[in-house]
């Protein structure tokens, strides 16, 4: 039973200033499902719409971003939520941080610089559950961070006294404090060195295996997906290109874009030249017609320029949107 069902979601940025109006179609017809107890990766290059997708899913749409059409439906077992219709009050009281939490891009700066970490903890927890016993709260906070591998001293520090990696881990600790059903993490490992990256990823894996919740992991780094994700979805120019279990994506990618992404990863022992795609990422205010990837696709056909390929199921849990691949053909 799906935890989250997204159907035909379109979310655009609409701006109008000094007489110039522009619509950026960041998410344009996205449909997918999330299930409990999995790590779902979203991959794609910068400005393909990944961050916008996360924002809409976690109910963080602020003007000029608006969800234009489609649906985002959650099923938390005993109650269901339509994310596009739910009220801010309902979101604030029951859903945010209790059912879904969000680890933002650039988590280095998500902590209030003038407040100690423990105070930030207090702020967040107090929002959802009144803290009656101060002492008990402190103990629980300590246990929580310790369990995630952070020393207790972290609680008494100010953000600028911690390193980037520690702040990232604090952010994750904060996101998991209520054991939410869905944790969305946007580029949690970017701007961290590899050693710290490993620590963060390990933390994510441990949390997931312990609470059996769902983690939506967005990153352009395919190596991260290879490491932690169960299923991976490839996004390009606001649309889904391919979605499959991790192994399949890496061993038998079907979409030309995915193929290119996989091929460009360096592998031990390999010595071949890496080719890059021709062209540049599309302008989302004025995207190409038909398949959005067609200007850069090495296998482009005439139909690709005019008709949008549908996202079809070619094999169990494997979907592709490409005119080269027919439904059920694998």
């Amino acid at each position, binding site marked *: 039973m799906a935890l989250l069902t997204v159907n035909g979601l379109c979310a655009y940025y609409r*701006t*109008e*200033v*000094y*007489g110039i109006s522009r619509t950026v179609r960041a998410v344009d017809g996205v449909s997918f499902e999330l299930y409990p107890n999995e790590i779902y990766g979203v991959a794609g290059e910068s400005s393909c719409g990944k961050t916008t997708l996360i924002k809409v899913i976690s109910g963080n749409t*602020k*003007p*000029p971003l608006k969800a234009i059409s489609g649906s985002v439906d959650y099923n938390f077992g005993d109650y269901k939520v339509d994310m596009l219709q739910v009220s801010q009050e309902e979101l604030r009281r029951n859903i945010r941080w209790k059912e879904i939490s969000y680890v933002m891009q650039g988590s280095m700066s998500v902590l209030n610089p003038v407040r100690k970490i423990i105070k930030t903890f207090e702020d967040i927890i107090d929002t959802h559950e009144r803290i009656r016993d101060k002492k008990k709260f402190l103990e629980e906070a300590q246990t929580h961070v310790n369990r995630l591998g952070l020393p207790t001293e972290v609680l008494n520090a100010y953000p600028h006294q911690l390193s980037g990696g520690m702040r990232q881990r604090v952010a994750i600790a904060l996101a998991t404090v209520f054991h939410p059903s869905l944790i969305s993490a946007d580029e949690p490992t970017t701007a961290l060195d590899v050693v710290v990256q490993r620590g963060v990823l390990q933390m994510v894996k441990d949390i997931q295996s312990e609470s059996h919740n769902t983690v939506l992991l967005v990153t352009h780094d395919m190596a991260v997906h290879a490491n932690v994700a169960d299923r991976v979805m490839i996004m390009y120019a606001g649309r889904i290109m391919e979605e499959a279990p991790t192994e399949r994506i890496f061993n038998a990618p079907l979409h030309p874009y995915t193929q290119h992404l996989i091929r460009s990863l360096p592998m031990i022992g390999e010595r071949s030249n890496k080719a890059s795609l021709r062209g540049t990422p599309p302008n989302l205010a004025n995207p190409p017609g038909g398949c959005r990837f067609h200007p850069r696709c090495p296998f482009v056909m005439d139909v690709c320029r005019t008709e949008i390929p549908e996202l079809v199921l070619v094999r169990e849990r494997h979907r592709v949107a490409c005119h080269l691949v027919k439904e059920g053909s694998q």
Partner: protein
Amino acid sequence: MLKVIRDLLKYDGRFRIAFIFLIAVVVMIFLSFVSPYDPGKSFVVAMDAPPSLKHIFGTDSRGIDIFWWMTFAVRNSLVMGMITALISRVLAIFVGLIAGYRGGWLDRVLMSINDSFVVLPLLPILILLGFLLRDQMNLFLLGVILGFFGWPYDARLIRSQVLSLKERSFTRTAVYSGTNGFWITFNEHLPFVLPIVFATTINNLLWSIGMEVTLSVLGLSDLTTPSIGTALFWANQHGALVAGNWWWIAAPTLVAIVLFLGLYLLFASINEYIDPRTRLRLIGG
């Protein structure tokens, strides 16, 4: 340039108002050149006459038509403001550029002195100056003096712009490719610095004319020259409020408000136009 004005007129209400106000001011200035009355002569018309079609702002206790006197006043005040603006721009650019480019201890010393000037309570010092130079004081001298005190705030702004420009990649590229430092300043950086200089000039005008009004009202400038401040001074001297000649006070006050509001709105709307972040903020919703 014209396109910028057109855009602003269309979309920014503040700019529209500023435009109207400032056009009125400019009109007044031009009118001063065709004034039927000599501002130096008094008792040329009926005294204490309230505003009418013949005398738009009425006349005062010295037998002077207030409207035509004010046209000179506006012109003089603005000329003085320009003098201050010129001198302080030169100083501000000089200090700002040097501090920004050289950095190091020179920068620190300059900024320390700069901040001292910003913090200093100017009025007591200016009163001291006005007192001492009373006999020689005229609007030109006042403009020069204000120019020597009006640079620190803007010097700091220019300096921070220079600092951020220095770090930008295009500067480094120019330096690495061997471009002469002076050339970099002129060709690459000036287009960024000039808008700030322009915006701060307006702010500076606001400040200096405000100071002039204040000092003149206190009797510390050349009281025979028409200016917005001296108008108020004379009105007070002759007890205008008590005598019921409210128009004598109202006219310069009104003119001052129009001038200051016009300048300020111009400043605010241009500032916002220049700054890309505020543009983004305007978009929200």
